[in-house]
């Protein structure tokens, strides 16, 4: 492999990290907020797919992709709130409800999304940050969507707010010990409902990125399990919003390895390289889940931890 080949792969990985990471980032941040409050919403794949469909339909009918993004966020909010409401009923298991909502969300999206497969909707514009370079592949890699920056700012905000605000404290307390929260006069169910709705809304926005920017079209095979992977990324990121961003970036970069290696002529074993993100996640999971701090950082009320 020559030096320029290594350069091509590196550029592709940076580009892939920026292009592919955003939906992972939004779903993971949403799930992070939900899990911090002590509840798991496995149904975010449904929010993601429904968000993708609603965003595309919204952009197509109104002509404004940003209205599509807002509508996607709203559709995710509704699904998340429904999950939150059902889970507060007695003896309801949040994991089972999540799986039901995954099917519900994708089913709704497929049903209402039929008329929007063929038309072409206006997409989100990218910010061309690579204009300084004469190399077209660098210029392409640095075509960054505003939602990418929104995600990073959001992660910084969440990281600060969870640690430093009254609201953050309430969410964390609800997640770590429902009994203490109740003793403080906090309505545990209400906090979790709001946290699940907020998380669902972020996942919907993540879906909008899929259909309105990259790959940038609506069809029924659009999400290949990004919503599910992002939920796993939260555990891998140990419930820290900033680590969620890093995990999403890493996952995006790893996903670019397979095609990039084939493009420079390393074509043997592409099945292995295409699986790189999953293999990578598996290894980091094993490594990180073994540590003692992993157990300490998990919200105590999570049904998978208890």
């Amino acid at each position, binding site marked *: 492999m020559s030096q320029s080949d290594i350069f091509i792969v590196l550029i592709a990985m940076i580009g892939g990290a920026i292009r592919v990471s955003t939906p992972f980032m939004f779903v993971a941040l949403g799930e992070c907020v939900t899990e911090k409050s002590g509840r798991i919403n496995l149904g975010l794949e449904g929010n993601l797919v429904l968000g993708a469909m609603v965003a595309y339909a919204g952009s197509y009918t109104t002509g404004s992709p940003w209205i599509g993004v807002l509508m996607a966020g709203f559709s995710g909010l509704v699904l998340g709130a429904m999950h939150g409401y059902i889970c507060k009923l007695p003896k309801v298991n949040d994991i089972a409800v999540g799986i039901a909502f995954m099917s519900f969300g994708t089913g709704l999206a497929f049903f209402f999304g039929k008329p929007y497969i063929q038309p072409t909707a206006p997409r989100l514009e990218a910010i061309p940050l690579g204009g300084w370079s004469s190399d077209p592949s660098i210029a392409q890699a640095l075509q960054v969507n505003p939602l990418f920056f929104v995600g990073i700012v959001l992660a910084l905000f969440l990281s600060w707010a969870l640690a430093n605000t009254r609201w953050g404290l309430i969410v964390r307390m609800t997640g770590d010990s429902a009994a203490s929260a109740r003793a403080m006069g906090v309505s545990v169910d209400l906090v979790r409902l709001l946290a699940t709705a907020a998380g669902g809304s972020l996942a919907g926005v993540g879906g909008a990125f899929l259909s309105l920017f990259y790959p940038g079209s609506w069809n029924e095979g659009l999400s290949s399990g990004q919503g599910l992977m992002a939920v796993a990324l939260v555990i891998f990121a140990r419930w820290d919003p900033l680590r969620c961003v890093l995990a999403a970036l890493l996952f995006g970069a790893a996903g*670019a390895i397979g095609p990039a290696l084939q493009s420079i002529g390393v074509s043997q074993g592409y099945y292995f390289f295409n699986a790189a993100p999953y293999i990578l996640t598996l290894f980091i999971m094993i490594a990180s889940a073994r540590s003692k701090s992993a157990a300490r950082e998990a919200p105590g009320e999570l049904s998978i931890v208890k």
Partner: protein
Amino acid sequence: MFTSTLTRRSLLKAGAAGLAATTLPLGTARAQAPIVLGAVYVGPRDDFGWNQAHAVAMDILKQVPGITVIEEENVPETDAASQTMESMINLDQANLVLATSFGYYSPFVVETAKKNPNVQFRHAAPLWKEGDPVNAGSYFCYLNQAHYVNGVAAGLSTTSNKIGFVAAKPIPSVLSNVNSVLLGARSVNPNATVQVIFTGEWSMPVREAEASNALIDSGCDIITCHVDGPKVVIETAEARGVKSCGHNASQAPLAPKGFITGAEYKWETIYKIYADALAKGEPLPNFIAGGYHNDMLRNTAYGAGATPEAIKAADAAIKGLIVKKPIYVGPLKDNAGNVVIEGAMDNYDPVLDGMGYLLEGVQGSTT
């Protein structure tokens, strides 16, 4: 128990029969043997790809007098396929079932055909063989001929001489399409090469977009593909300002600036043969395979990306294929240097159905 004999299906059947009885007088004006054609699709009918190609043909068939077309989409290649076919037969009285996805054949089409000897089944892949149920059969078009035409047009529309190919899986029909693009391009432009990236899945939009970007970054100025729904690949190429060639159905509207032409099936030719035979009460052929010589393929109308020379050469290539001019003319080497084809091969030679190599000039690997 009473309820155990009264199943939902028998209830629906009785209801349907009752409904049929009340509407019967209207039906007497129809042809002697009404054809009820049940079409089973694996994905959505409007996927800009494989399923759309079939659905477009069904739309033409719906115009034929005396025919009723019933369709079901998103039927997975599982027992669900059998259930769909059974319900088309039992509830809608379908007498011809077209199962359009590769994985439906065995065991689902075979078993359902054995159970329903009065219903005809045809399946869109060359899998039927002697000994399989006589009321089943296969139909197939050699799309690589249309990809050869893509290659000819691409070979004269490229300036970098590099054509990018996003491929799903290294199975013979995909490899034959890749190789045919190369041979088409080389027939008019000896310096042309094809670079292939395999995604490993029939439908994985994000990876297809990544693969298209990687090909464009490595210098390809024309992108084509063999994946289930080529929408993402063609749109990515258009957004990056490079040209594209289509696959399966027409993607011309997706790329107003860079579309050259595309390889398309013409399933309606086969479906009309079936409908005519049924209307006359004649037996359906068990096996139909076709290409340009029997009007079972077409290339999408040329787009803005095709140069005048490309259009001329591609039209000439189509004329050649109609008179069965061979595509694979040896000696040809694979890209590891082994001679794989000695002489000229007929375009329908069964040896080509087992293709497991990429030709010299294709950058990529099947493993």
